[in-house]
């Protein structure tokens, strides 16, 4: 593995972004309007990165040493230096494969999906920029570069959620995502500061080595690391939509569906998981994993319950994403870093697949998302149906599909940590299977409730869209089997063993037993959904209090609004605007203006318009200056 490979890997999407950006600015109608051109440029750029990622992965797999090199010093000070440097080890290479692989397929899918959109070129420019930022996030060999990528993906997420900026809801959702993310980023920044204060550097290698060294604990004590890791976890909560900062993710579905698939399901939202996995050494030492695990499992359960009652396909998928992210945090929280990352990988594939399928449905249904107006789509859209079914089975933990392997590993590890967590996780697994198949039965089976005019041109999506679906379906189904066969002795664990430290809680109990339990739970969920929704439409009105609570998402948005948004708005209006801005600041500004006006009015008399008066004063000045220079210096 050479530096050139990584530079090409990193720069290709940037080039794609620049080219597409310039095309967007171009006044040339032929170039600007050419959808195919920008679409394929964008896809090609990611394809280049994908090839590079595969090469990097292959060389690592072939036994090459992890790459960790500093390119140059970025910011230097008297006592510190921040570098531009890259690190490619097993974890990074897996992330690279996920990002570029899923990313490439979604790019190709977007060519068809975004067909005819006005911002076509802009869309691909943003998408390429996102890939670039995400690559920086995973490639950096220090926290600062990770933070740069972290902010970069946040920016792209904001831009893409608000992609259809004519829509008020879209811009609002973008702003919401941005602001909520800022809270998390604040924590991340503070975490970075803490680390820098403690270690004087932000390089992964140096920090981990120093933290593992014996004398560190004596000098700083573990509390520093506790604070640092918790603060970093705040960042992860924001980025990965955990309780209490998950509220932005469901709203983020206002963006184009491929964006939801790529950014808000497969890659960006998993950055928090990646970050914790990357900092595994610190979390192990600080013993803060339990906090992570608890937040994760609660989020998983909480989001799953909300998903039960939603009727909007993309929202269900969004809450499902939040829930699955909770699983990942549960995994990394209990010390099963490899399992968490493994779930990240499988989830990227099947959730990406499901989002794209939802997009395909939307595409066919003229942007209709409410599944109560669907039904019986299986006949009209067979490929979409089958691919979605694969994804749903995978997420539901159907035996031997990918979700089964990764989720099972996490639950197995959770048992080792705490049976309560395990129990909540198991319930969540049941709920997951239930709401997913509720979605499938209502959408694809039963009577067609499609509006007649929509029904008339209901059709299967074009090849450029369903081919990526089909391709994605294969890894969604099989990747778990390939990577996860053998539980903790699997290939994936073997491959990533060098990166992660030993877990605290050795998983105990019979592996097969756990597998059977979780399979049964998943199948039960599917069966329950089949029994309730095979022939039924979800009711319009909530029937009881619990249902109502769930439909309204526990009133979290309303609570936030009442507790945070309104006080700030009122404070701004009455205190900041009326008193501070109008009274104090305007008073100062106007006062300065009046004073200057008064001075100017007085000084105006000096400007006589007579040139010679000016010259006299000039000469006077010269004489005085010369005199000072000659006689006093």
């Amino acid at each position, binding site marked *: 593995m050479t530096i050139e490979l990584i530079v090409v890997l990193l720069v290709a999407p940037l080039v794609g972004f620049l080219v597409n950006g310039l095309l967007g600015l171009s006044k040339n109608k032929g170039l600007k309007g050419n959808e195919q051109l920008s679409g394929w440029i964008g896809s090609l750029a990611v394809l280049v990165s994908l090839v590079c990622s595969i090469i990097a992965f292959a060389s690592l797999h072939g036994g090459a040493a992890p790459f960790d090199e500093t390119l140059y010093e970025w910011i230097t000070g008297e006592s510190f230096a921040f570098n531009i440097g890259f690190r490619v080890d097993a974890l990074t290479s897996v992330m690279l494969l996920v990002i570029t692989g899923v990313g490439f397929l979604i790019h190709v899918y977007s060519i068809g999906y975004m067909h005819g959109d006005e911002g076509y070129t802009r869309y691909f420019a943003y998408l390429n920029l996102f890939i670039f930022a995400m690559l920086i996030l995973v490639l950096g060999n220090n926290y600062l570069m990770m933070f740069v990528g972290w902010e970069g993906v946040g920016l792209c997420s904001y831009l893409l959620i608000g992609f259809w900026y004519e829509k008020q809801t879209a811009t609002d959702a973008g702003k919401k995502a941005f602001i909520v993310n800022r809270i998390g980023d604040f924590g991340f920044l503070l975490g970075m500061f803490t680390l820098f204060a403690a270690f004087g550097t932000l390089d992964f290698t140096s920090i981990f080595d120093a933290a593992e060294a014996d004398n560190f604990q004596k000098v700083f004590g573990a509390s520093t690391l506790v604070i640092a890791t918790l603060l970093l976890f705040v960042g992860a909560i924001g980025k990965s939509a955990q309780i209490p900062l998950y509220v932005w993710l469901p709203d983020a579905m206002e963006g184009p569906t491929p964006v939801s698939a790529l950014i808000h399901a497969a890659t960006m939202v998993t950055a928090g998981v990646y970050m914790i996995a990357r900092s595994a050494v610190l979390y192990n030492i600080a013993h803060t994993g339990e906090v992570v695990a608890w937040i994760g499992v609660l989020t998983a359960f909480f989001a799953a319950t909300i998903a039960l009652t939603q009727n909007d396909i993309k929202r269900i998928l969004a809450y499902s994403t939040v829930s699955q992210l909770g699983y990942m945090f549960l995994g990394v929280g209990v010390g099963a870093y490899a399992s968490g990352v493994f779930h990240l990988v499988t989830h990227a594939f099947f959730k990406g697949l499901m989002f794209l399928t939802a997009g395909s449905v939307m595409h066919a249904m003229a942007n209709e998302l409410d599944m109560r107006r669907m039904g019986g789509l299986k006949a009209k859209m067979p490929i979409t149906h089958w691919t979605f079914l694969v994804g749903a089975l995978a997420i539901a933990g159907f035996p031997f599909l990918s979700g089964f392997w990764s989720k099972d590993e996490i639950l197995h590890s959770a048992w080792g940590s705490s049976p309560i967590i395990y129990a909540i996780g198991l319930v969540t697994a049941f709920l997951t299977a239930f709401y997913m198949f509720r979605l499938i039965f209502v959408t694809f089976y039963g009577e067609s409730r499609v509006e007649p005019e929509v029904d008339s041109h209901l059709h299967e999506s074009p090849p450029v869209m369903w081919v990526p679906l089909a391709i994605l379906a294969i890894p969604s189904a099989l990747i778990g089997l390939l990577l996860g066969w053998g539980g903790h002795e699997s290939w994936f664990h073997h491959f990533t063993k060098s990166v992660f430290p030993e877990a605290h809680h050795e998983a105990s109990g019979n592996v097969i037993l756990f597998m059977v339990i979780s399979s049964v739970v998943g199948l039960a969920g599917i069966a329950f959904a089949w029994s309730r929704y095979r022939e039924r439409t979800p009711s319009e009105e909530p029937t009881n209090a619990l249902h109502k609570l769930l439909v309204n998402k526990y009133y979290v948005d309303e609570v936030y609004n009442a507790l945070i948004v309104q006080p700030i708005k009122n404070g701004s209006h009455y205190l900041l605007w009326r008193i501070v801005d109008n009274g104090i600041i305007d008073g100062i500004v106007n006062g300065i203006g009046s004073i200057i006006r008064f001075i100017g009015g007085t000084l*105006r008399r000096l400007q006589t318009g007579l*040139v010679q008066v000016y010259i006299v004063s000039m000469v006077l000045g010269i004489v005085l200056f010369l005199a000072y220079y000659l006689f006093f210096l």
Partner: protein
Amino acid sequence: MLQATITLQLYKGGIFIDRAIMPTTVKGKGFYMSLEYYLILSALLFTTGVIGVLIRRNAIIIFMCIELMLNAANLAFVAISRSLGEATGQVFVFFVMTVAAAEVAIGLAIIVSVFKHRQTVNVDEVNSLKG
């Protein structure tokens, strides 16, 4: 004891080609006019120009006084150039002259334009810029 360069060149006229020859022997101060006298003359000329600019109201005469100041500066340049024994000062004189020529052309054109509009070159009457 005439040692003027001109006469020497007259004598050498038939034979020399490109470079004039100056007396290079210096027997103490006062043999030739030392630098300071030229500089004093330059300062006096410059001051005369300054005073002219300050007390005259005719724009054209003011302009002439500016030329006078430029020339005083030129004199200082040439005097120092000789004192240092190199031609750089004279190159600057050349530049000053070029700029002066351009400035005169523009300045006189402005004066003519002003005269066309206001029928005067009295700077006291051209005071539309007063505050």
